[in-house]
């Protein structure tokens, strides 16, 4: 780790931010079209973020501020670990378990800050968010566990490279279709999109964790949201869709998957949180266990 790594990391962060925010803007338009609206301009998301950042706000004590900084910092640190296509800011640190756990720092900061506001809506939102996490993460981790066992590496780029050796058919989503399905469903949960968005349900619990935020706090949360989306979608691209030999390939795959999920999300209703847990433990977890069993015991799909 030298200074150049950090410069590189900063640039990658910037790129990720620009890309994901643009994509979000585009998707707002896509969704609008689906709903027979015109929708905002594709750069509207940038305007929203910067506007929020520039406004004044209220705070509820130091942990409210500290939590936001910790959340954004943690998420950005995680984003640095994610390979941007073939590009990596920090060598040999794209270990999936590291990413999974570093991601939690940001989540914890966010939750802490929200609870620190003293608003019960926020706490309810956090409690749902954590429950949701317990639901989607287990099936996902199980599938990942199978992959690691099969290919003896827990490096994202390593796993992606292995897929690319077999061309399109080598993608894990093809070789391990059950795992692919599980991963896509889990990703939906991670992104907090319908049907798994009960923790921010705006009409029900006043946007849950976000209820007390405004101004720079809210702007930072927007940033956080973009980065965490970037992390989560990239994970799936690397794990199941062959990553990216070039930055362009990576971004295309990324954009397609994200848009697909967004569209799916918009045609679905919302699960109650306990329904979400039950669903994840009934279907995806079972699929994940079957998939992992096939990988570990039968060796199916492993070259």
């Amino acid at each position, binding site marked *: 780790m030298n200074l150049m790594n950090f410069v590189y*990391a900063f640039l990658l962060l910037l790129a990720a931010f620009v890309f994901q925010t643009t994509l979000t803007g585009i998707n707002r338009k896509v969704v609008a079209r689906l709903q027979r609206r015109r929708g905002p301009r594709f750069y509207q998301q940038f305007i929203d973020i910067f506007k929020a950042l520039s406004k004044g*706000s209220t705070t509820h004590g130091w942990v409210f501020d500290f939590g936001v900084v910790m959340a*954004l910092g943690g998420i950005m640190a995680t984003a*640095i670990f994610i390979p941007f296509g073939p590009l990596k800011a920090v060598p040999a640190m794209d270990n999936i378990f*590291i990413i999974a756990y570093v991601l939690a720092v940001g989540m*914890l900061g966010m939750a802490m800050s929200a609870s620190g506001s003293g608003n019960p809506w926020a706490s309810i939102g956090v409690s749902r968010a954590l*429950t949701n996490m317990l639901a989607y993460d287990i099936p996902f981790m*199980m599938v990942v566990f199978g992959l690691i066992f099969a290919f003896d590496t827990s490096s994202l780029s390593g796993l992606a490279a292995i897929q690319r050796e077999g061309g399109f058919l080598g993608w894990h989503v093809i070789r391990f279709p059950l795992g692919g399905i599980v991963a896509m469903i889990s990703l939906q949960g991670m992104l907090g999109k319908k049907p798994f968005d009960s923790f921010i349900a705006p009409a029900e619990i006043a946007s849950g964790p976000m209820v007390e935020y405004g*101004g720079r706090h809210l*702007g930072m949360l927007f940033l956080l949201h973009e980065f965490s989306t970037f992390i989560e979608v990239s994970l799936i691209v690397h794990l199941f869709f062959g990553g990216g030999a070039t930055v362009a390939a990576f971004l295309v795959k990324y954009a397609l998957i994200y848009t697909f999920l967004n569209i799916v999300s918009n045609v679905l209703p919302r699960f109650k949180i306990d329904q979400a847990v039950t669903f994840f433990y009934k279907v995806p977890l079972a699929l994940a266990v079957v998939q992992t069993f096939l990988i570990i015991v039968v060796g199916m799909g492993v070259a």
Partner: protein
Amino acid sequence: MTFDILIVLMFLGAVTAYLVSKADLKAGAYATVLFSLGALVLLLLGRGEIGSEFTILFMGFEVTTIGWYFSGVMVLVYAMTAFFNSYWMDKMIYPGSYNFLYLFSLGGTVGLFFAKDLITLFIFWEIVVWSSTFIVPMGKSRRAAVVYYTISTIGSMATLYGIMLLHRISGTLDIQGAFAPLKNDPVLATVIFFIFIMAGLTKIGIFPFHIWLPLAHGSAPHTFSPVLSGGLVKMGAFIAYMSVGILPAYEAFKGSLTVMGIPIQIYALMILGAVSIVLGTLMAIKQDDAKKLIAYSSVANGGYILIGILLMDQLAFAGSMMHLFNHAIASAAAFLAIAVVAHRTGTTKISELGGMIHRMPLTYLTYLIAIISLAGIPPMGGFVSKWLIIQGLADQGLMFMALAAFFGSIGSFLYVFRPLAAVFLGQLAPRHEELASAPLLMKIPMTILMVLILFFGVLPGWILGIIGQIQVAAGIEPVMMSGNSILAVNGVLNTLNVFMVFGFGFLIALVIFMLMQKSRRVGLMDTYTSAEFIYTPELYHYGSAFYAPFERLYARHPSVEDFLMALAYKGHEAGLMVNALFFSHKPGVTVFWITVIVAVVTLGGVGL
């Protein structure tokens, strides 16, 4: 020479602390601090004497690396917790005896880890059991002490049976020699393995022996819960290590049926470990008492430690050994933080508290760092050890263990966050507005523990070095380090880099935060209330039934506790039956039994 002084000093210290307490209670409590710190210093000084042997009275001792490591963990927890003792002197029913038993049990634990023969091991084991048994009821529950004692004794008696059986087979009690004949006798080795490890299972609190942890940890005096959870539970890990490492189980079970390359005997226990993880997590999520919550988290973490030790490999074993240390200091720190809250407010019920961060920020920070480590989030120590364990599991392909481990890991986010949100964050009740922050003497150990948790999360090299030596001594491949990187089969972890990247991200976020417009500070009640007017902070605090929708999913779970209680009641009933059948003031009853016995015996005897 250092270690015999150490052990003797602890027992003398116990007496000294008692006598000093008779003169002045506070001074007695300070004596416990001095003696336990002295023990820590002696341990560190004696590092070079590993391998030496000595005897005290009729007991033989040998200093091994693993013993040194374990006792280091134990003494550290005792020493840190001792700082708290003086604040509870006026609340204890027998403060002098508390100080006495505190150091006495410390002496017991230290002696235990250095035992050279099995009887010495057992002697110190039981010393710890009974001395801690008498501390627990000074807290909130007498029943807890009895349950604790009974479950511990079931374990230690089984182990004693194992010790005696070993002696019968091998003719020696020496730890190294006693297990020797088992290598070539898988059946016997299986029997010994299961019997001998019982004390370990009960002490770690592995399912179905976990029921004593929430009871005892939850209701012990606040200054002893950290020791129970952080320290004494680890004694069980030592026994578990002996059963796998010294037996050596893998060699003895070579011919056994295997599951994923693990002999079925060991796999069976790993399943228990996995059940403990899931069960501990689920139960911790629904607790309303912060101490019980941490106690159940100890159950879950005990599961990790057991699985890691049972694997006896390069990664998971190292992870487990390190987790032992990490969990010890993290759970001690968490309990200490709760102890501060209890000291100031008099309760540990989550639903009765809230907003403590505004009154005791350092305590909050201690708790935060402790639970981050407990949940295994970087950059704390707990992350390194959990990462190692999961890497080890992935290496072996133990998917169900991994499933439990993931569940425990994610589940821990839920339960560690709950006290954080409901005790430290949220609304501060008006009755708590005048609370003072933690006294100075309490701040010292909390700060030390915080620094240690963070330090070993960023630079785990020193500890992993010791663990490497332990692994070499146990005959397995040591965990590999290169610079600050831990090299696992499936990946590399450079904790320093993680920390630096994390710092970098934090810095950027901080810069963004600082650059933007300043915020206006408003009160906690000045929030969005859906247009309601609310004036009671207590009611405006989300503290009870935190995960209600999730808890509902397993509200009607079957409970092994109910089963064990039913079993205990059956014993009670059997006792009453004995009483009713045989004991009467009427001679006829006994005459009847005499006649029956004569009939039964002669019936068989006449024919012979």
